[in-house]
């Protein structure tokens, strides 16, 4: 590589990961087979709330191939083990003990009550049918408001309440803005709405699996997880194991979307059983088990009030949330609504704001982070109510947004929620989106269809969003009582032949780190892209890491790479000067070469690496090692933003919605690999649109998940989604040296309200003011019937 070479950052590099993935040379956890390995199967409660009177495992123990059957009594006789929650949002938060296996009582349908270890997976499953459990039904608590009512059945009797925590932010009290109650009293216009965020299933394509090998010096755990590092720490703390005796590996992981940030009862039971039996043990789950027991997402009721002056200036915003935790607490579940708390005010200048959230226990599968975690919910509510306010004010919804958003010259801007947005240009993104969308032309067509009473009506939906990502500044996390920091770690190893190993603490599961990280390091060190190997997901070679969630990998982990690379160069410079027989200050580095300023004398970084390896001729006292590491802890979040425009056609006779066109212009700051960025946007849009139109985890009145397979939970296929038009504006972030903002969640955060706004817009003249998600044909049709009445 020469000094004039085109930078790698910004290139649409094809992914390094793909060659093995498209040829089937993959290493999913379920591919791992060890000699003598046993297979685990978990017996799960069919009931949502019941006492366990008796468990009889005697017949199962006699089944062919069965090595052992365990219940809570065997795995945790002292009843000490409780699955961890890392985000106690308030000092008095209620935290019920979640056992590895239920002992006396089951609290959701799907909770494990016994586990079989057998020589084959089939035999393990056979044995489950021979276990006899006697249950005594208890009243089921499913509805959040009912759960909080006086006299309701309390799920965790020792806590005395179904309320997990109440968390409040008030701009008046925080000193970041005015008193929202005053704003409501003084308001010229007030709009209040209730929105429901339905329960969703993250539905990563690879079901979860864990293999534990108790042989050798350490316990080795392979798991299909987003968080190998956090899993190691949490497992050590939860089970009281010495951390240095645990090695956690996340091999190829088939998607996560937040759904694999848990510390699972199944991971712990696999470990406990492997230790008890002294043999390697594998647990892998069926999709239906995954649907019922892997954590769900969303599930909030949002009461939101916005106030404004007659001319459309927003004066206040008040939000009251109910958030369903399910039967226990996920690792970060109580804090998911808090991630939204700072985002309801979105891109707008709002003088007063109050947010209050009540977390509630119900007899359902636990919820936790799902792509966007808190921010999609907030964005949905504010963007929906902005449209409702526009109707109330008889303003164009885009004009209302423009009147209230932060102007590009006003950055950095400290919001009413106390965050400082470093950069952005909402005008530019919106202008570009309008051009691509033909906003004015579609409005004309909408008028024509209304005038002709066309059975297919056209609607336009807008979503101008921002998000806080790059989780996160450790100090901020600490102030919110989060149980860990938000730094990320990277290490660079210079190999003797000039090749480079990069170790990242950010554990990828589809994001393309191996490619993007290579691009960053190639530029920093001036080595060829192909000469870099990115290693991740094994605590043995990557002991420090905070893993992958919250659109944090590039902003935090990418920056750590840059810092580590700088240290490599700092270490290499004296060697280069020594080899070139000049002073260190006379060395300049570019394009992989250390050159003597003003001469054509130079030495490549690869030659320096070889010289350091040989160590025959180094400066006096030089430590023969170029390897370096670095940890980056940002002092602010990053704030991607964008404008999404959606046109829907609504068949008013059947209620079916189809997306006619979808345009989004996102600003994710500097882009390392446009191919990967575009892919992240596409996938995010698909998930956000799926929330608007298709997906819902439904429980019946007994608490059984009735959408518990892919036949009932409506994931869209290629035939159900449109072609997206995507573009970008680029306003670099000032909170990290790469100028990047993160893109993993943007599409999901922005798209859901754009679609629902478009549906309501299509039907507004028919008296429709809202459609609950998912906007199924029946719901849309019923809304039309209701509007017409």
């Amino acid at each position, binding site marked *: 590589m020469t000094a004039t070479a085109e930078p790698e950052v910004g290139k649409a590099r*094809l*992914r390094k*990961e*793909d*060659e093995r*993935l*498209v*040829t*089937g*040379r*993959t290493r*999913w956890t*379920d*591919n791992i*087979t060890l000699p003598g390995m046993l297979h685990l199967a978990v017996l799960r409660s069919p009931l949502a709330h019941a006492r366990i009177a008796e468990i009889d495992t005697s017949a199962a123990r006699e089944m062919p191939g069965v090595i052992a059957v365990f219940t809570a009594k065997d795995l945790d006789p002292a009843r000490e083990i409780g699955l961890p929650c890392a985000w106690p949002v308030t000092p008095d938060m209620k935290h019920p003990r979640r056992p590895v296996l239920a002992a006396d009582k089951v609290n959701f349908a799907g909770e494990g009550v016994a586990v079989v270890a057998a020589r084959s997976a*089939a035999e393990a499953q056979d044995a489950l049918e021979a276990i006899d459990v006697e249950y005594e039904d208890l009243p089921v608590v499913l509805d959040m408001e009912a759960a909080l009512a006086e006299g309701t059945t309390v799920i965790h009797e020792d806590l005395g309440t179904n309320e997990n925590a109440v968390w409040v932010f008030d701009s008046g009290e925080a000193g970041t803005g005015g008193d929202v109650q005053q704003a409501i009293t003084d308001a010229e216009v007030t709009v209040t709405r209730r929105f429901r965020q339905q329960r969703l299933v993250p*539905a*990563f*394509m*690879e*079901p979860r699996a864990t293999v534990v090998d108790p042989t050798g010096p350490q316990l080795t755990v392979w798991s299909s997880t987003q968080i190998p590092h956090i899993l190691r720490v949490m497992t050590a703390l939860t089970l009281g194991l010495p951390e240095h005796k645990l090695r956690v590996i996340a091999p*190829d*992981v*088939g*998607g996560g*979307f937040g759904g694999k940030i848990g510390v699972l009862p199944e991971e712990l039971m696999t470990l406990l059983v492997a230790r008890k039996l002294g043999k390697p043990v594998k647990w892998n789950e*069926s*999709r*239906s088990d995954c649907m019922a027991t892997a954590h769900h997402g969303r599930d909030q009721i949002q009461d939101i009030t916005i106030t404004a002056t007659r001319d459309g200036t927003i004066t206040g915003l008040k939000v009251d949330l109910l958030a369903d935790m399910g039967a226990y607490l996920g690792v970060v579940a109580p804090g998911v609504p808090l991630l939204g708390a700072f985002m309801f005010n979105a891109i707008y200048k709002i003088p007063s704001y109050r947010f209050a959230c009540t977390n509630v226990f119900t007899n359902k599968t636990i919820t936790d982070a799902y792509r966007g975690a808190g921010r999609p919910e907030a964005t949905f509510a504010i963007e929906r109510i902005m449209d409702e306010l526009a109707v109330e004010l008889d303003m164009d919804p885009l004009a209302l947004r423009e009147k209230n958003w932060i102007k590009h010259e006003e950055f950095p801007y400290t919001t009413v929620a106390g965050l400082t947005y470093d950069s952005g240009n909402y005008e530019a993104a919106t202008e570009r989106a309008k051009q691509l969308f033909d906003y004015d032309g579609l409005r004309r067509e909408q008028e024509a269809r209304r005038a002709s009473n066309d059975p297919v009506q056209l609607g336009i939906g807008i979503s101008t969003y921002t998000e806080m990502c790059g989780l996160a500044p450790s100090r901020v996390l600490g102030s919110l009582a989060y149980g860990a920091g938000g730094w990320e770690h990277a290490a660079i190893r210079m190999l003797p032949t000039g090749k480079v190993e990069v170790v990242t603490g950010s554990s990828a*599961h*589809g*994001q*393309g780190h191996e490619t993007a990280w290579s691009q960053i390091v190639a530029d920093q060190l001036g080595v060829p892209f192909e000469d870099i190997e990115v290693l991740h997901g094994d605590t043995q070679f990557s002991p420090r890491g905070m893993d992958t969630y919250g659109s944090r990998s590039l902003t935090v982990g990418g920056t750590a790479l840059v810092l580590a690379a700088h240290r490599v160069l700092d270490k290499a410079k004296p060697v280069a000067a020594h080899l070139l027989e000049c002073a260190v200050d006379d060395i300049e580095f570019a394009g992989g070469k250390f050159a003597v300023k003003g001469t054509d004398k130079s030495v490549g970084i690869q030659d320096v690496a070889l010289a350091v390896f040989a160590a025959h001729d180094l400066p006096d006292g030089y430590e023969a090692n170029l390897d370096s590491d670095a940890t980056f802890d940002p002092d602010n979040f990053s704030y991607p933003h964008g404008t999404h425009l959606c046109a829907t056609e609504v068949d008013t006779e059947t209620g079916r919605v189809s997306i006619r066109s979808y345009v989004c212009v996102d600003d994710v700051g500097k882009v390392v690999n446009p*191919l*990967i960025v*575009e*892919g*992240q946007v*596409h*996938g*995010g*849009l*698909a*998930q956000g649109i799926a929330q608007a139109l298709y997906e819902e985890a439904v429980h019946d009145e007994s608490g059984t998940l009735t959408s518990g*397979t*892919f*036949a009932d939970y409506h*994931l869209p*296929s*290629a*035939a159900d*989604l449109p*072609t*997206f038009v995507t573009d970008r504006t680029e306003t670099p972030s000032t909170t990290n040296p790469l100028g990047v903002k993160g893109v993993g969640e943007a*599409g999901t955060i922005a798209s859901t309200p754009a679609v629902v706004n478009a549906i309501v817009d299509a039907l507004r003249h028919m008296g429709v003011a809202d459609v609950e998600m998912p906007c199924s044909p029946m719901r849309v049709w019923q809304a039309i019937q209701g509007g017409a009445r």
Partner: protein
Amino acid sequence: MRITVGVDGTRYTDDVEPRMLLVHYLRERLGKTGTVVGCDTSNCGACTVHLDGHSVKSCSVLAVQADGSEVTTIEGLARDGRMHPVQQAFRDNHALQCGFCTPGMIMQAIDLLADDPDPDDNAVRHGLEGNLCRCTGYQNIVRAVRDAASKMAPGAGPAAEQVAEPTLDPASRSSDADISAPAPSHTGGGS
């Protein structure tokens, strides 16, 4: 039950329980772990392979039903170290992220192109409706399939012949397999 199945050009004879699914036979007996299981209701298509020249979901076929048949998996597509044009197109068009659905998606795309060598976007989308992906939003998958179609069209170069699945290449046989007889070649999607 004893079965004999040709997989990716190698013939295997094994005793299996009647209840063993083809996908488990491929993964656990033959080590063909490139083919994966994503669901239990035959919705996701991640386990798609070709059975006697047609795409099927190998989670919904018993191994005993495949007795005497020829199976091609994602691992049997590359030839002489070169990827199948559809594999290449998936890479070229960033049509995968986590890659878990990809083997099934590619196997179905090859079947689709055998039936319809020049599909429009809509035909690709409907041709892939039995395969779920959670990462990509499908747009780049559609692009990849059409890209592959253009490269596989007659006269588009030597890659075009790779619509047909590989004929037996002795070098690709695994050393520990029971190679009792060469398996006949067959074309993807032909009846």
